[in-house]
């Protein structure tokens, strides 16, 4: 189990490093898919089986299709050497944001989670054995969180209308 965690975590970090260092945007996108697959494997190790399946389906599938379309839309060829300077403003901002994220992670590492969000040992295993991965997630989603679920459809509706308005302004 520990070996699997280190394997997939290391593969995810390696793939994301390759993603941000490739010259060709398409090979960056392919490495990003590899990263997302490895993160899905980490979700499996955390017993979040449904989340892992959705991660592959939505992120590695649909969102990556969107990324590839954006690459085709913007016609990003391979970057010529010297085209991306070492210190552009966006890189500095990205570097600072990354440092901020790292600091947050270091703070979180030493923080003790409150009891309210900590499950007693064996609860997850019991749920898995009794109800299965999908059911233990789906029953609260559709029963206790009925209203948020229905509001999600309004959110998706807003996304549909927004996409059409942005892309088809001249209709």
């Amino acid at each position, binding site marked *: 189990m520990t070996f699997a965690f280190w394997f997939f975590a290391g593969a995810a970090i390696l793939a994301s490093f390759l993603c941000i260092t490739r010259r060709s945007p398409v090979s960056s996108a392919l490495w990003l898919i590899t990263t997302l697959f490895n993160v899905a494997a980490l979700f499996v190790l955390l017993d979040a089986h449904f989340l892992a399946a959705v991660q592959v389906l939505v992120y590695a599938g649909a969102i990556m299709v969107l990324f590839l379309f954006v690459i085709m839309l913007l016609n990003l060829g391979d970057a010529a050497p010297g085209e991306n300077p070492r210190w552009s403003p966006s890189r500095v901002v990205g570097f600072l944001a990354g440092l901020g994220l790292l600091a947050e992670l270091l703070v979180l590492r030493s923080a003790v989670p409150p009891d309210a969000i900590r499950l007693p040992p064996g609860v997850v295993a019991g749920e898995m054995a009794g109800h299965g991965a999908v*059911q233990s*997630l*789906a029953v609260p989603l*559709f029963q206790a969180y009925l209203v948020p679920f229905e509001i999600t459809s309004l959110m*998706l509706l807003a996304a*549909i209308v927004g*996409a*059409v308005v942005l892309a088809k302004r001249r209709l």
Partner: protein
Amino acid sequence: MLESYVPLLMLMVLVIVSAAAMVGLSHLFSASRPTAVKSQPYESGIPPFGTARERFEVKFYLVAVLFIVFDIEVVFMMPWAVTFRQLDILGLGVLGGLLEMAAFVVVLVVGYVYVWKRGALEWT
């Protein structure tokens, strides 16, 4: 629980091995005698014109965005399909589960009708 992922692992290994074998063996055993004509990109027999690295139209992007939205709708349907018989909503039993998803889908059908009427699915 993790044992149930062994078939998935076997599938991935099989895919990687067979893909590597297809590329590697054909590279090893094929004779490579390129000519100018053979090196052309294959365009179904038509002489190629222009480059493949053209900017694509924004309507491809629109289709991709709409695909994602309806993909996420289906993601919600999967856990619902597993559990809707056990749901107890407003004391209606199975009907409650059906009505819940019907309300969800009706809102998205409104979006679908909007997309259709707006002509966003027309290609030209």
